[in-house]
């Protein structure tokens, strides 16, 4: 679906019977009093933005549009894949947001029209907005993958959007015989959750070590380096010696073609790898909604003013979370939560016609290598006009830390999950 034209949009409105004289509504744009904010996407970015808009100004009319009644978090989904946690434990609902006075609609967006500031929904409603926030997450660049498309993910799961895909990968690992080969293929940059594939590799190893100790994990990477690499490799040596083989892109890790029927990966270097379970994580782009609304660039991502998250393409539309390019911030749930708050502050300040104070952004990514072994990367960020969002502090866990340190970080990983889900959905 391509971007809707204004004429088509008005026709759509007329067809829905909801509104006919769209341009007339434009003048009703409210300044301050009961301003209408529509947020699309109820993940860490969108839900946080809704919650903090409401905290900043309870008079705002906030609508959050999210198709799912339960949001299954990508954070901690690797624990489900490895059997350490249940799907229930990573499922978040929207009751608390509703109780805060946010109007949560479980439907999809059919079209966005920036010119008339309207959003048409699948349920037939048409919403007018003063500010629109999109937090659509990611989608996959299937057209960059040879031999595989979206429907094949039923056989070769990506499990990079948590939900049915998470269960599928879990079940495939359970069904595999001892002595099998699991292939994990992480994508090129940029992608959702940079340390995520390597946490997954670790926790699959944890599962295999307990239940299928003769099995191996082969990692065919589309990159030559990865997040917290030294820490992961030290942990793999310590916890799972001989079980994980990591092949960098330039040493034969880059995949050329996939034969889904035989679960075989052909690499650029001419090698052939057959996997009993394959977790191919495709290259990524901003969620399809952002593409359809004309907010994404040729490279597939949305460029924004990194102080306010207002789109460079359309005024009054903000894009936050994985879909946006936010300077040095990684694509991660924590980052989206932080951006949701800055975006909420920018919107409220703009409606009040006051200057927003200097924003501060934070990200921390915890990864578990086993239930009692955690590592982290943390950063504090500021904004400048020249540099966009840049780092002012932070760092990674130390190499060679003792067991007590790793255990403490594993405890804090769980503590972080409890806090951020409450801050976002609570």
């Amino acid at each position, binding site marked *: 679906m391509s971007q809707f034209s204004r004429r088509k949009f008005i026709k759509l409105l007329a067809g829905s019977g909801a509104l006919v004289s769209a341009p007339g509504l434009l003048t009703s744009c409210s300044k301050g009093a009961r301003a209408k904010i529509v947020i699309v996407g109820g993940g860490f970015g969108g839900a946080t933005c809704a919650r903090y808009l409401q905290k900043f100004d309870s008079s705002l009319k906030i609508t959050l549009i999210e198709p799912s009644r339960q949001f299954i978090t990508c954070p901690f989904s690797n624990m489900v894949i490895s059997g350490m946690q249940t799907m229930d434990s990573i499922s978040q609902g929207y009751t608390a947001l509703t109780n805060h006075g946010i109007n949560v609609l479980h439907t999809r967006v059919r079209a966005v029209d920036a010119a008339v500031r309207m959003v048409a929904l699948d349920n037939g409603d048409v919403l007018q907005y003063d500010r629109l926030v999109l937090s659509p997450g990611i989608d996959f660049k299937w057209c960059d993958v040879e031999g595989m498309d979206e429907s094949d993910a039923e056989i070769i799961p990506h499990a990079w959007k948590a939900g049915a895909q998470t269960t599928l990968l879990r079940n495939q690992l359970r069904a595999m015989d001892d002595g099998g080969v699991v292939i994990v293929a992480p994508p090129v940059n940029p992608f959702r959750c940079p340390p995520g594939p390597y946490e997954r590799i670790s926790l699959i190893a944890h599962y295999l070590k307990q239940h299928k100790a003769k099995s191996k994990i082969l990692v065919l990477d589309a990159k030559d380096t990865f997040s917290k690499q030294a820490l992961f490799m030290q942990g793999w040596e310590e916890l799972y010696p001989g079980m994980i083989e990591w092949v960098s892109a330039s040493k034969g890790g880059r995949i050329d073609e996939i034969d889904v029927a035989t679960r075989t990966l052909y690499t650029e270097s001419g090698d052939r790898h057959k996997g009993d379970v394959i977790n191919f994580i495709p290259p990524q782009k901003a969620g399809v909604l952002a593409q359809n609304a004309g907010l994404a660039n040729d490279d597939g991502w949305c460029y924004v003013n990194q102080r306010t998250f207002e789109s460079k393409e359309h005024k009054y539309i903000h894009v936050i979370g994985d879909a946006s390019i936010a300077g040095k911030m990684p694509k991660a749930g924590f980052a989206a939560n932080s951006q949701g708050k800055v975006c909420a502050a920018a919107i409220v300040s703009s409606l009040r016609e006051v200057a927003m104070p200097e924003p501060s952004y934070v990200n921390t990514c915890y990864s578990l290598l086993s239930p009692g072994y955690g590592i982290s990367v943390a950063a504090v960020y500021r904004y400048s006009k020249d540099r966009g969002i840049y780092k*002012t502090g932070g*760092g990674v866990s130390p190499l060679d830390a003792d067991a007590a340190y790793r255990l403490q970080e594993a405890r804090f990983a769980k503590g972080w999950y409890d*806090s951020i889900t409450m801050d976002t959905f609570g």
Partner: protein
Amino acid sequence: MSRFLLLTVFMSCSIAYASEVLAMEITRAVMLSNSCAACHGTDGKSPGAIPSINGKSTQFLVQALHDFQDGKRPATVMGRHATGYSDEEIQLIADFFSSRP
């Protein structure tokens, strides 16, 4: 004294209004402190393993953050986070969380 009383009356009026519509001033302290909530909980009230920081004294919070910066206080991630803030910012963050109930 009378000025203080007047202020109190004014403030209780605002609070009475506040039950209808809550509008928070977005200060620098708010911008800085909101980003702590993802780990320490909304307004510093943690539901899990990470320590709550609401209602601690300003002095305690300032000291803790400086000690994290200098490596004097044992830490995992906080030693790294604390390097991202100036003395003035630490004071603003400490004031914010000490005033949270």
